[in-house]
């Protein structure tokens, strides 16, 4: 019998999480230098699903680039396409009918709820609870059915067009959305009792993985991650776009900076999104859903254009540099999770591996959106 392997007390080893690992929710690789169960240093490795979306945007016409945007973030695709159409419309000076903007706001908020629901399920599953995922998916299914009936797709929507929408919403959609709101409110109460109050859940999140507001600013983190650290920043309020100034809603902000705060921000955001949908359905004006005056092929005047929108994951920005041609000279996509993920390396130093994986879940990473 051989003697057991003796490690030197100061010896560390490298742990490779991913690129294929259920906790990373995609093809993200994290190299961790471990001292026992504690992380000494961590390094995230990107690029496993890089598809050159920016370069594609420079080689396609603006209309041809539309389907690409929904491939960035497959859980909250509508927010990204919204940013693109808004940028082009502002640059080309296209007037969008009010009805189209209201429908855009309603569908984006529905998509945000769907995205948060899936995150909620997956996050609790990361911590070892399986049932909440099933309940969340059941609620999300209602949203996907609604959006499928309107847009024709379940995940990778291509619904918005420059100057309006691909298709108008019908009464069935409005009825279904009105039915969905009270159902979702009831579900949110259920989730609160089932998960938020759970002792195991709280012990694993409360006071764990503090991310200071300063660190958020340093890495450019936005969205629920920043709002969980006490930064009151939401593009919908700070740089209003579309018809958001017409709605009465709050931005949930928590100052605890821990994983639980980020969880609470998202849960509260779902309620706020429901409020926006409710008001949107009430105020929905009649009229055309597509602009009448619209150039057939869109050519932007020479210049530099930027548009930011608040997606489910944070502030998404699209920058278009035009030289007057049919396609962009340079197209830059600023994706929120790219910045949110980068604080992981610094924040997880000295953390237990199990806490680090829970922390990663609370950042709500969607890898295709990081790599683009």
């Amino acid at each position, binding site marked *: 019998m051989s003697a057991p392997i003796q490690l030197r007390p100061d010896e560390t080893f490298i742990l490779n999480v991913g690129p294929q690992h259920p906790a990373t929710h995609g093809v993200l690789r994290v190299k961790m230098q471990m001292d026992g169960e504690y992380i000494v240093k961590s390094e995230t490795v990107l690029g496993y699903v890089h598809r050159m979306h920016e370069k594609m945007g420079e080689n396609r016409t603006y*209309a041809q680039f*539309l*389907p690409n945007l929904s491939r960035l973030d497959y859980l909250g695709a509508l927010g990204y396409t919204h940013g693109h159409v808004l940028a082009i419309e502002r640059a080309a000076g296209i007037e969008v009918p009010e009805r189209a903007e209201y429908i855009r706001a309603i569908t984006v908020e529905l998509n945000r709820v769907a995205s948060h629901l899936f995150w909620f399920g997956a996050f609790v599953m990361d911590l070892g609870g399986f049932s909440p995922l099933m309940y969340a998916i059941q609620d999300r299914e209602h949203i996907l059915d609604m959006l499928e009936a309107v847009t*024709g*797709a379940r995940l990778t929507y291509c619904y918005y067009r420059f100057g309006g929408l*691909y298709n108008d919403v019908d009464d069935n959609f409005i009825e279904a959305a009105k039915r969905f709101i009270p159902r979702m409110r009831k579900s949110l109460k259920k989730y609160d*009792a089932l*998960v938020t109050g*759970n*002792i195991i859940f709280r012990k694993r999140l409360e006071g764990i993985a503090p991310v200071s507001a300063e660190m958020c600013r340093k890495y450019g983190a936005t969205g629920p991650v920043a709002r969980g650290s006490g930064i009151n920043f939401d593009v919908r309020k700070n740089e209003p776009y579309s018809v958001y100034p017409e709605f009465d809603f709050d931005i949930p902000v928590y100052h605890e900076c821990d994983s639980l705060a980020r969880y609470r921000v998202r849960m509260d955001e779902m309620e706020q999104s429901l409020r926006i949908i409710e008001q949107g359905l009430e105020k929905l004006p009649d009229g055309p859903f597509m602009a009448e005056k619209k150039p057939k092929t869109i050519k932007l005047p020479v210049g530099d254009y930027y548009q930011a929108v608040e997606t489910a994951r944070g502030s998404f920005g699209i920058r278009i540099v035009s030289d007057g041609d049919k396609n962009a000279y340079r197209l830059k996509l600023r994706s929120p999770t790219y910045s949110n993920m980068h604080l992981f390396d610094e924040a997880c130093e000295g953390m237990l591996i199990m806490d680090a994986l829970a922390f990663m879940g609370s950042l709500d990473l969607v890898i295709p959106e990081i790599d683009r």
Partner: protein
Amino acid sequence: MGGYFSEILYGSKSLLVGMGITFREFFKPTVTVQYPYQTIKMSARFRGHIELIADAEGKPKCVVCGMCERACPSGCITLGSTSVEVEVDGKVKKKKILSKYELDFTKCSLCGQCVENCNFGALEFSKEYNLASTRKEDFHFNLLKRLEERNA
């Protein structure tokens, strides 16, 4: 010491509340569908791959203008045409007739630009979604042949 016991109390209560919720879910009706024995009808706007629309005579409505080919972001549509001479009001005119309409579904992202850009209403979305295959050739659709098969 008091904190210790109150935490046990709080913890046990929270677990019982959670178990109560999952227990009640037992008696809720089943929401899943037993695929492939049961299927759901696709919604009217469901976007599958494209399909040619036939006119009253069973011929494709397509006039080979090539708008769909140009609009496609991924270049997955290939058109072919033959030129025939037809008599219209006693004059002989040349007319293009569709001889090939190939869709490379491996590249298609189902954006619907082709259908939207068609000025002649010659394209529609199929409701077909059972398209799994292990061979790449199965996704190269000959839409003209599919139309003939549907007509037959």
